[in-house]
């Protein structure tokens, strides 16, 4: 099999896996939340309610695809596509196993940060083009939140980069053969986890779509397939953040007995479940509390973490 066919096949498999995963996550999230809240969750359609996802997809696809008359049509249509494209592109640099990576760039981590900063446009443009005050307020919250949390999301990763000496994700995984980076870089992991929650706008950071104040935030006016794209983008985003946590802090594909890909998937699923558990257990903060937490606690913490990591690397070298 030639190099090109291998990569094309890899990309097709990856895209199919991601979309299936996102659909499956909807079911997983509803079932897990229900279990933790002593309910049943969807359990009527098919065995264990598994076909509920299919029913949801059919419903979303066959709904009327409606653009409000007062909306800015071209921008309104393009906004939901941006979020899915940007998050899915980030998977190009994630190494799933040795040699199993679409594009092992030497600036892989920067590529991820670039793509995650582009996904801000999806919510910004969705809110603006809807011409609806709730949508606009929601997208303003989203921009403020995502731009602020991006700052120390990048900073929290620099400790790992300093210890590895490379932005290439496969190098970072290879450097964790002896010890996972979560131990020397626990602060970095905690900050990245929280910033990842804010980037994917999940509870407790889902103020941009707080339903009891803003209807549905930036996607108030969206329905049918376009709404489904936002929905899908959120789940692909959760998968991406979990995959990156595994790659950067939990040794990526390393693990005993099982093949490397299996370890990667198992570890990623554990973090996805913890995202869902957080949604079931935490309250939403107020918006000013969110901002104060970010700039007064997380930013200084990530700077201290970076300085400590730099000092440790210097001490080891001399």
């Amino acid at each position, binding site marked *: 099999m030639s190099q090109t066919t291998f990569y094309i096949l890899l990309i097709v498999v990856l895209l199919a896996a991601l979309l299936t995963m996102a659909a499956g996550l909807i079911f997983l999230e*509803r079932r897990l939340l229900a279990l933790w*809240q002593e309910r049943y969750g969807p359990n009527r359609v098919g065995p264990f309610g598994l076909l509920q996802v299919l029913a*949801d997809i059919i*419903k*979303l696809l066959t709904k009327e695809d409606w653009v409000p008359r007062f909306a*800015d049509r071209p*921008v309104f249509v393009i906004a939901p596509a941006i979020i899915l494209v940007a998050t899915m592109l980030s998977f190009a640099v994630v190494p799933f196993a040795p040699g199993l990576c679409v594009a092992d*760039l*030497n*600036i892989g981590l*920067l*590529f991820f*940060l*670039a793509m995650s*900063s*582009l996904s*801000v*446009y999806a919510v*910004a*443009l969705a*809110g*603006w083009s809807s011409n609806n005050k709730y949508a*606009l*307020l929601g*997208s*303003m*919250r989203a*921009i*403020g939140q995502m*731009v*602020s949390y*991006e700052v120390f999301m*990048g900073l929290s990763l620099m400790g790992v980069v300093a210890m590895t*000496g490379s*932005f290439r994700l496969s190098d970072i995984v290879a450097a964790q053969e002896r010890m996972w980076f979560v131990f020397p870089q626990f602060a970095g992991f905690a900050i990245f986890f929280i910033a990842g929650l804010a980037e994917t706008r999940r*509870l407790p950071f889902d*103020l941009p*779509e*707080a*339903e*009891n*104040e803003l209807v*549905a935030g930036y996607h108030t006016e969206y329905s049918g397939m376009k709404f489904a794209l936002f*929905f899908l983008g959120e789940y692909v985003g959760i998968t991406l953040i979990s995959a990156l946590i595994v790659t950067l802090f939990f040794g990526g594909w390393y693990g005993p007995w099982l093949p490397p890909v299996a370890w990667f998937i198992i570890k990623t699923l554990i973090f996805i479940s913890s995202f869902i558990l957080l*949604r*079931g*257990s*935490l*309250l*939403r*903060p*107020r*918006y*000013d*509390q*969110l*901002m*104060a937490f970010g*700039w*007064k606690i997380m930013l200084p913490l990530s700077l201290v973490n970076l300085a400590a990591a730099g000092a440790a690397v210097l001490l080891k070298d001399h």
Partner: protein
Amino acid sequence: MTSVFYISSGIAVLATLLVVTRTNIVHALLFLIVSLLAVAVDLFVLGAQLAAALEVIIYAGAIMVLFIFVIMMMNLGKAEQEANRHRRSPAWLAAGVLSAVLLAELIYVMVANPGPPVGPGNDPREVAKLLYGPYVLAVELASLLLLSGLVGAYHLGRPEQSRAGTARRLDGSPADSSSGSARPTGLGRAERKTQLGAVVAESSGHDSAAIGGSNAGSGPVPTQEEPS
């Protein structure tokens, strides 16, 4: 790869032309983002991967987001668009002269030394060594500029009482008396603070009530996202 370079260069030029001809300012900004992304592709094809990534992260991902944020707050309507269509300002002449000088310089440089540009390439380590070696003065100057911008933004974003001094507070009036008065500009001010980031905590919920309203009763019961 050469064809990719020329295609994305063409997109960059076309998008930039569209930036200056659009009357809807958000559309103009979107074309500017397209142009920046096209330039990033150009840099990537030329082998400067680090510069391409930084172009996307800093220009497209941070600076332009803030531009869009501010323009969104203004909520310019059809009237503004109409006014833009009929605006004839002599200012374009000066801008045109300056651009013509730049274009002439660019053509001169390209004719004088043809061939691919030389530089530290795409190794982040090499770029960092240059930045903190021979060019450290420029880096420090740039950070000074950013710091002065931050201090200025902080000053502008403070609530008016504390900017006016402590005199009023000595009178016995509370420091945060703005919470009761619904100022017409309340939303705009609060948003500007959010954009300036560090300043937002200063208002501690009073000015930003419009965007960060109370959150009573938001229990852990998730309902809104589930397609039922």
